[in-house]
């Protein structure tokens, strides 16, 4: 938050840190969905929903998602996936 936002900025590289924000976003959405699944109270669901949304907005802002074409997005994600996959293999996961 508190960043300067630039629309149509030239495509930016997506460093691993940005992917960590994406992972965090996914984790919080999972928390929210699971809370809904076990019948959590509306207040609990709303709080988890807000947290997930905040994390995702942080991710989107960091990623300059504005100007990534699907093809470029795909290339970035593929490269990051390759890195993550190799790391998982090294760690025996």
């Amino acid at each position: 938050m508190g960043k300067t936002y630039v629309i149509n900025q030239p495509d930016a590289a997506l460093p691993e840190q940005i992917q960590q924000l994406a992972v965090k976003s996914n984790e919080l959405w999972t928390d929210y969905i699971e809370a809904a699944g076990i019948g959590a109270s509306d207040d609990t669901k709303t709080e988890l929903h807000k947290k997930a949304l905040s994390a995702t907005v942080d991710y989107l802002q960091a990623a300059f998602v504005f100007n990534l074409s699907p093809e470029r997005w795909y290339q970035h994600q593929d490269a990051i996936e390759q890195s993550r996959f190799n790391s998982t293999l090294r760690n025996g996961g």
Partner: protein
Amino acid sequence: MPTNHLVICTATVVSTPALDEKGMYAFWADSTIVSGQNTDTYHLLMHAPITNDDKRIAALMEKYQVDKRFLFQGKFLFDDDGNPILREENGNPYATYDIVLNSANYLGIVQADIPDTFNCIFAMTITQDPEMRVTPSGTYLYQMSGVVNRSVKDDTDPSGWKNFPLWIRTTVWGEKNAETLVNKGFKKGMLVWLEGTPAPDKDKTGFIKPWEGDIKEKDTDGKDTGKTHKGWRTSFDVWANAFSIRMLNKGGGGSHSSGEFDPIPF
């Protein structure tokens, strides 16, 4: 085509991943959303970010098995006119949505008994001053219209970009929610983050609707000529919560001012 949105949804895999016409590994997944008494099933073609790597492809095949449910995150993939990719089944239009996933391997499995969710997040420029209304039955609602500016590089356009706007109509239900948003003072021209779920698809034509509209023509200097031609545009109705709309920029949508877009014409 650049976009400024993200899709987050749960869905059940209904086909084994296979190479598609774009050379991506893709599989079909269904997401069924219940809103009140309305149930809509969305048919999603998930494009996984995997290239020619046998080990990764094997991992993809092992993970995305038919009938398993996952949380997915990605971006809509539109055709060259900026609309959803239309398909037919038995000669009938078939509402489908292509999504390029942001990852193939780290999204989670979702339990089978948890209801599906379908959330879309947009960076949207407000094109009309929002309004709060009360229905004859006394239900409060807050409505906001705007546009997500999707652009593609186009050397033939003086600006270097060609716009494919995605029009958004948002409804927020409830007196407390509506008053909260009124107090936030959203106005035409502001850029906001908007997160919402597809409004119930009463006519069963899909939640992103291509429609033919008037496209303003520009001269070589990029100024309006006053002429228009018919072209395809796309609109999307979403329901949102009071906390789902956040200020991004008070001044307008970045390189494209709100003045470039007319109010949503319906």
